[in-house]
């Protein structure tokens, strides 16, 4: 033992300056993690600055020393040195080894592990996490240091050690790439887990341990039977190969993504149930023409579930789909599995169901306000695309009834409140559901001259206990954290929560620790008129919500019978609107220049003319209101070549399609009625022709067949079916309306006997969108308008509370809703030309009255002040 300590003292004296620098850097790292130096702050432009060059350099040098110190102390007296001083001295190899391990332990491992312990203690983390964190630091430190030392023992001097390191690193990358290339071409290796990210840390840690064991055995063998350079390089290269294989191909899913509570998820789905409305089915072809002569197509659908648990939301994923014929024989099937959507990119809007789940967690029935800068917007319900199927283009069953059987998976997510943080400097709260704390580190108000964009900035620090051995790194990766957190600015005085504009996680401190710190930069854009006053701001809160994956529940779905040729929509290369179209005179001039087919023209000539005609219409400015004058060249062609027009309709859209449809309406002869009615099944928009020509009675059978047609019924078809006022049609029409609140509401609300189902549909529709107010969104606007028209009191309350919160640019819709659904005093009703252009004149009046002062007048179908309701009965339930 005496010689062990003697050798240790020699090493300590020889590398004393290394040790000094190493300990200083460790101390600096600790001080940085604690925020004593290099604190995160905002620069003059409101941009968060979370790392300086010095900080990066300090970390770099610390890492270099951490990796190099165990190696240099071994290389100094390496057993590979044949002319080394100790090679002919009476120092037993055991004593030498113990001395080196003692040095590495006391000089490298203990300080590195101790730093973590000190940091966690000073952070006030519970003691069990302090020990756990130190243990995890040791799990990382021990194999790295011993591995570096073992590797160093192979080399006789520093130059060779450096060469060995460089070559080994190059071999690692090069060999890894080569193996990847070979194996990816030989066999299909599933690189990615079903989730987007792999447990990289677990893999690396496992690979390090395997490699260390391999290296230690070989280094020991090398020490016992020392060989030449060939032996050393063989050891180095073999270690590299072992490391690469372990990382790449050994499944080290030590902490695979696990659902939090699969039983609860299953129970929720069993209770909620699900349906797939027929109207939500959308069939589409691949826009790329496959070279193998096959037709690629897929189906998207919108499962509707009854999940109403607080904070719970469903994301649907499709796993596979099989097509079967009438005899239940399989025709074709897809491959591939759906992916868990736990790690959406930051800017992908969240679906409405998740926003609704968030809103259900707000205190006191608050709602989320989606302002102009709400980049998340309001995503429509989760639309699921089934895997693509490919079939031969000449397959006979394309014209026969088939059924689709799809495997779906309902991924149940649970949003929970993580922190209710006061919105002022230095406010700190404990995390509600996990060990850790949140801190509003900095609050700054930037008064900019452009009208108050991004006035408030917060720098929020999150100190979270994250244990590498008890958490899935995929869940705690930066991508996952961004996707699984939501920040809302909540004003309790108004009950409004506003989505913060947050940059993705802007920084992280204290790496490789049980309590890393994450930094988020939050920006709040508020209307100058709705900016919280000073006292009010003190009451405001930054609400942080966290999403966890509860579990995934598989479900099966079977479609109704359908004929692909009838439901497949041709692919459109682009559906973008041409904002720089040609003018009306130019359009008419070019139209006149087209060579009109002669009286005896054949189908190809007519089809070519029609194609040129439609293309010309597509180049027109979208704002042009084209009248029947542009139809003049087409009308003579319709009677003789109706088949060309009908065949071309599925490939048209927008204004050109409308014009062609109008041409058919005006130009078709009475004798062609059966042909047009028959084409309804394939082209429901032809219902416009049927309606305008008065052929509804004859078209009734075909129109009724549309009730069973998958996909959204066009307005024209709804209009035609509504004409019959047949309760048999109501369920499908209401389903259509529920999927897409639109002008069809005006068609349906007057149908006899459609209430109370219509009211139920409207209320259900409102429930789906409630909790998020976003006047920019047509879906929300229509749902709100319908709910107000039906006198929904909850909708009115939410609408009333959100008035004026918009920052001025899109208040036209608010103004329209106010004037349509609220009885406004006469002098404020019309501000010029009879069209209300601005909310401002009435806003003050609106704010002077609370929502509960109004009552719904079912006659006028407006909300009126109770005080203005002169006698008579109260219209509906009091708001």
């Amino acid at each position, binding site marked *: 033992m005496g010689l062990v300590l003697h050798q240790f003292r020699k090493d300590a004296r020889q590398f004393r300056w290394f040790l000094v620098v190493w300990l200083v850097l460790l101390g600096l790292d600790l001080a940085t993690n604690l925020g004593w130096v290099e604190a995160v702050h905002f620069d003059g432009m409101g941009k968060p600055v979370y790392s300086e060059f010095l900080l990066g350099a300090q970390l770099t040098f610390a890492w270099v020393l951490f990796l190099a110190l165990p190696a240099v102390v071994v290389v100094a007296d390496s057993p590979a040195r044949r*002319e080394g001083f100790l090679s002919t001295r009476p120092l*037993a190899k055991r004593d030498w080894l113990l001395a080196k391990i003692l040095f590495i332990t006391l000089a490298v491992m203990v300080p590195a592990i101790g730093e973590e312990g000190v940091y966690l203690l000073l952070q006030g983390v519970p003691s069990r996490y302090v020990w756990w964190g130190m243990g995890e630091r040791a799990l990382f430190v021990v194999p790295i240091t011993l591995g570096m030392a073992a590797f160093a023992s192979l080399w006789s001097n520093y130059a060779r050690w450096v060469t060995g390191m460089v070559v080994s690193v190059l071999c690692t990358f090069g060999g890894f790439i080569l193996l990847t290339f070979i194996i990816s071409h030989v066999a299909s290796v599933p690189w990615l887990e079903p989730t987007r990210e792999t447990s990289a840390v677990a893999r690396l840690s496992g690979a390090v341990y395997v490699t260390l064991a391999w290296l230690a055995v070989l280094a020991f063998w090398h020490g016992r039977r020392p060989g030449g350079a060939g032996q050393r390089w063989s050891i180095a290269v073999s270690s590299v190969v072992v490391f690469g294989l372990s990382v790449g191909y050994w499944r080290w899913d030590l902490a695979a993504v696990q659902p939090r509570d699969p039983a609860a998820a299953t129970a929720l789905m069993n209770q909620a149930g699900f349906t797939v409305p027929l109207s939500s089915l959308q069939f589409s072809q691949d826009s790329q023409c496959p070279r193998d002569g096959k037709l690629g197509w897929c189906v998207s659908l919108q499962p509707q579930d009854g999940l109403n648990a607080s904070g719970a939301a469903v994301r649907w994923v499709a796993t596979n789909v099989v097509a079967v014929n009438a005899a239940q024989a399989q025709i074709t099937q897809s491959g591939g599995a759906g992916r868990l959507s736990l790690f959406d990119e930051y800017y992908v809007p969240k679906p409405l169901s998740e926003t609704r789940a968030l809103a259900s967690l707000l205190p006191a029935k608050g709602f989320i306000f989606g302002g102009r800068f709400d980049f998340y917007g309001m995503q429509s319900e989760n639309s699921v695309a089934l895997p693509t199927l490919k079939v031969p283009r000449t397959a006979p069953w394309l014209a026969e009834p088939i059924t689709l059987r799809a495997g779906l998976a309902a991924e149940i997510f649970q949003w929970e409140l993580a922190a209710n943080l006061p919105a002022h400097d230095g406010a700190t709260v404990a995390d509600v559901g996990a060990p850790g704390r949140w801190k509003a580190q900095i609050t700054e108000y930037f008064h900019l001259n452009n009208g108050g964009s991004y006035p408030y900035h917060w720098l929020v620090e999150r100190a979270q206990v994250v244990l590498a051995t008890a958490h899935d790194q995929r869940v705690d990766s930066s991508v996952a954290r961004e996707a699984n957190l939501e920040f809302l600015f909540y004003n309790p005085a108004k009950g409004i929560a506003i989505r913060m504009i947050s940059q993705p996680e802007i920084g992280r401190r204290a790496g490789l620790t049980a309590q890393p710190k994450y930094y988020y930069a939050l920006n709040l854009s508020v209307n100058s008129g709705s900016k919280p006053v000073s006292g009010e701001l003190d009451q405001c809160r930054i609400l942080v919500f966290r999403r966890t994956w509860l579990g995934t529940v598989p479900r099966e779905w079977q479609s109704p019978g359908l004929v692909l040729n009838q439901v497949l929509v041709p692919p459109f290369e682009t559906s973008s609107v041409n904002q720089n179209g040609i003018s009306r005179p130019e359009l008419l001039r070019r139209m006149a220049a087209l060579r009109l087919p002669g009286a005896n023209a054949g189908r190809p000539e007519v089809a070519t003319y029609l194609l040129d005609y439609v293309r010309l219409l597509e180049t027109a400015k979208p704002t042009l209101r084209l009248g029947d004058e542009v139809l003049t060249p087409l009308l003579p062609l319709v009677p003789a070549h109706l088949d060309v027009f009908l065949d071309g309709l599925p490939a048209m859209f927008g204004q050109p399609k409308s014009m062609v449809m109008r041409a058919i309406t005006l130009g078709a002869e009475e004798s062609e009625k059966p042909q047009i009615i028959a084409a309804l099944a394939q082209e429901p928009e032809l219902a416009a022709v049927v309606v305008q020509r008065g052929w509804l009675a004859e078209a009734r059978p075909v129109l009724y067949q549309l009730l069973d047609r998958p996909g959204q019924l066009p307005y024209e078809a709804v209009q035609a079916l509504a004409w019959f006022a047949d309760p048999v049609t109501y369920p499908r029409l209401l389903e259509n309306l529920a999927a897409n609140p639109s002008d069809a509401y005006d068609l349906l609300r007057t149908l006899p006997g459609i209430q109370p189902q219509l009211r139920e549909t409207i209320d259900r529709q409102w429930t789906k969108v409630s909790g998020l107010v976003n006047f920019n969104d047509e879906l929300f606007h229509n749902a709100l308008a319908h709910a107000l028209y039906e006198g929904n009191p909850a909708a009115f309350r939410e609408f009333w509370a959100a008035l004026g919160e918009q920052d001025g640019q899109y208040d036209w819709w608010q103004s329209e809703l106010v004037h349509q659904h609220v009885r406004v005093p006469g002098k404020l009703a019309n501000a010029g030309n009879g069209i209300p252009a601005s909310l401002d004149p009435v806003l003050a009046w609106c704010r002077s009255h609370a929502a509960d002062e109004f009552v719904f007048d079912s006659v006028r179908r407006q909300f009126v002040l109770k005080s203005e309701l002169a006698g008579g009965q109260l219209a509906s339930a009091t708001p």
Partner: protein
Amino acid sequence: MNPIIEIRNLRKQYRRTLAVDDLNLDVPAGAVTAFLGPNGAGKTTTIKCLLNMLTPDGGEVRVLGADSRRLGTAEFQQIGYVSENQELPLWMTVQQFMDYCRPMYPTWDAAFAAKMLREFDLPPAAKLKALSRGMRMKAALLSSLAYRPKLVVLDEPFSGLDPLVRDEFIRGMLELTEQEGWSVFVSSHDIAEVERLADRVAIIHRGRIQLDEAAEALMGRFRFVEISLVGEAVLPVKLPANWLNVEASGRVVRFADAHFQEAELATVTGKLFPATRQMNVTPMDLREIFVALARTYRLTGDANS
């Protein structure tokens, strides 16, 4: 007395080069054995094998009675090794160096070390990297002798040393070997310096021992012979095997007699060179003997004498 180093059929190969080929040698205890050979003969390889710095490919080496591949602390505590290529901890001062070595040797004689420190004139506070090559060799020697080893192995100890330092070094070694009775195994191609030390000489050539003999006996049997003839010197076809490097120049014939016997020499020269006018016989020093043998080895590839 058992040899302190026994080498039997030692073999060591570097890729395609056979550095040591079936080498056999016994190094007696209590004597200074000079291990001579030209560059690349295999001297350093042999030394490294006997100190377990290299693993032999064949044969057996025993040092202090122990297998060289199992030399442990007990053996190394009795062995002192100094080499021109030895890596010293240059960051240490001389004193630190001594203090570092001392605990490894139970027999470390501090007074002796201090005495050598004075005699070698080594500055204790100077870092080893600041010392000249010669001073470093002295420091290395001091660290290898202070514990009075039974066996001292020196590999090219004079390489790069100036004549004064060499002289001091050799005088020091002579004194110590006389006083302490150590066994010394010194390899060098600097024969003139080794001659003063050596009790025994072993010559290695192309990995094989060509000669292993007591220095005195060796120098006793070698003579340089110069024969002056009356007429032009013509060398006979057949010459005695013990005549080495025979050359004729004008009227003079010169050669080295590897087994000198006065009477026999006179008889043989009288027969071969009847017209001998004069014959001079002079002793040869070790260097001259080595050169003569080396030339012979180069020509014949093996020892004939």
